[in-house]
């Protein structure tokens, strides 16, 4: 993960300054990496060191975007985001538009990560509202969710009409297998820092939640209403032991 900075640097060099989000391959390369990076960061420390720290923090930020600019900026990063919107959002907000410094972005994302719901959607609303209040939040939110939602509705229609065609069945079967594999890989990437720290209680909790939801198929609310207080208590005690 330490190579993220280099990776970002290499990408910056390879891409013309005025070039927009037009390289799905390069961009998607960063998808998993930076998502996991942020995740680890939120595990260990307050988001101080930032993956985009090659950008000088003294850069003068551009004037606050208007509602229409917010809508289109988020629509663009969302439609570019195959496999995850986060890296595209970071690039557009921090590097391209310079609406936030890398640190501010990390801080905002960390907040949206510990709150429930789709993180990047939360981020869009919080981000938009920073500049233009509730209306700005709504504009960014609609930009992020609206256009891909319309696109997915189109896919839903196609699936309803042609989903039973043998050719499409075979293709979808292959894609779902690969998609499950990607999810498994993400889980393991997220697990690595937890395993490396060798603290037993979080690992036990993780396995317990996995078993309760995945094997026993208990309702989500039930499991979390038990697991969250326990986890909070354990984390609190562990941190106090470390500091004393």
């Amino acid at each position, binding site marked *: 993960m330490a190579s993220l900075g280099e990776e970002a640097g290499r990408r910056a060099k390879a891409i013309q300054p005025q070039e927009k989000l037009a390289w799905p391959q390069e961009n998607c390369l960063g998808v998993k990496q930076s998502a996991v990076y942020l995740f680890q960061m939120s595990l260990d420390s307050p988001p101080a060191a930032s993956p985009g720290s090659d950008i000088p923090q003294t850069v003068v930020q551009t004037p606050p975007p208007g509602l229409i600019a917010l809508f289109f900026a988020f629509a663009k990063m969302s439609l570019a985001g195959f496999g995850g919107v986060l890296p595209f959002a970071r690039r557009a907000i921090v590097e391209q538009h310079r609406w936030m410094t890398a640190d501010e972005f990390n801080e905002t994302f960390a907040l949206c*990560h510990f709150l429930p719901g789709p993180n990047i959607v939360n981020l869009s609303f919080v981000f938009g509202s920073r500049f233009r209040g509730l209306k700005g939040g709504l504009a960014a939110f609609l930009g992020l969710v609206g256009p891909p939602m319309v696109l997915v509705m189109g896919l839903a229609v196609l699936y309803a009409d042609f989903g039973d065609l043998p050719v499409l069945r075979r293709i979808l079967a292959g894609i779902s297998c690969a998609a*499950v594999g990607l999810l498994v890989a993400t889980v393991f990437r997220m697990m690595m820092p937890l395993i490396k720290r060798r603290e037993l209680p979080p690992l036990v909790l993780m396995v317990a*939640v996995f078993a309760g939801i995945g094997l026993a198929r208990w309702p*989500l609310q039930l499991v979390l209403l038990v697991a969250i207080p326990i986890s909070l208590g354990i984390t609190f005690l562990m941190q106090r032991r470390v500091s004393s």
Partner: protein
Amino acid sequence: MSSDGNPIWGLVATFGLMSLFAVGGANAAIPEMHRIAVDVHHWLTDKQFADVFAISQLSPGPNVLIVTLIGYAVAGFAGAFAATIAMCLPTAVLAYVVSGLLKGSRGARWPALIRTSLVPLSIGLMGASALVVSQAADGTWPAVVLTLAAAVLAFTTEINPLWILLAGGCLGLSGVI
């Protein structure tokens, strides 16, 4: 399809509530979506659930748009719209409110405490997601092998995930799965 009056409200209530418990993002809520959509309400079959998961992973935008597909299966365009907004808007507004409240408490320790304590839970949830969709998708041995290969490839290399999905589609088309 549910038989009671208007399925839209069922969708709104289901996903509105679910979003508040989606700790760690949309992918963490997949087992709950499966439980409700397949086991409780029979909106989708297991196979269809695996399909909509695949479609949502393949399409651009936030992964949460799997609820758009579930909503469409229940009540057409209105259902798709209602499910998406119900899953996305409440927590977005919550985030907005909390970020306003937090402005005054910069440097407080408890946000980090909450974050750290939620991490193992959301990883457990994601693991359960992987298990649930794999049970729907991996019915045959070649399918299991493809899943494992994709997992290893994605874990050990930095290949663009989109290529892995497309390769899976090609293998499926060729009839291997």
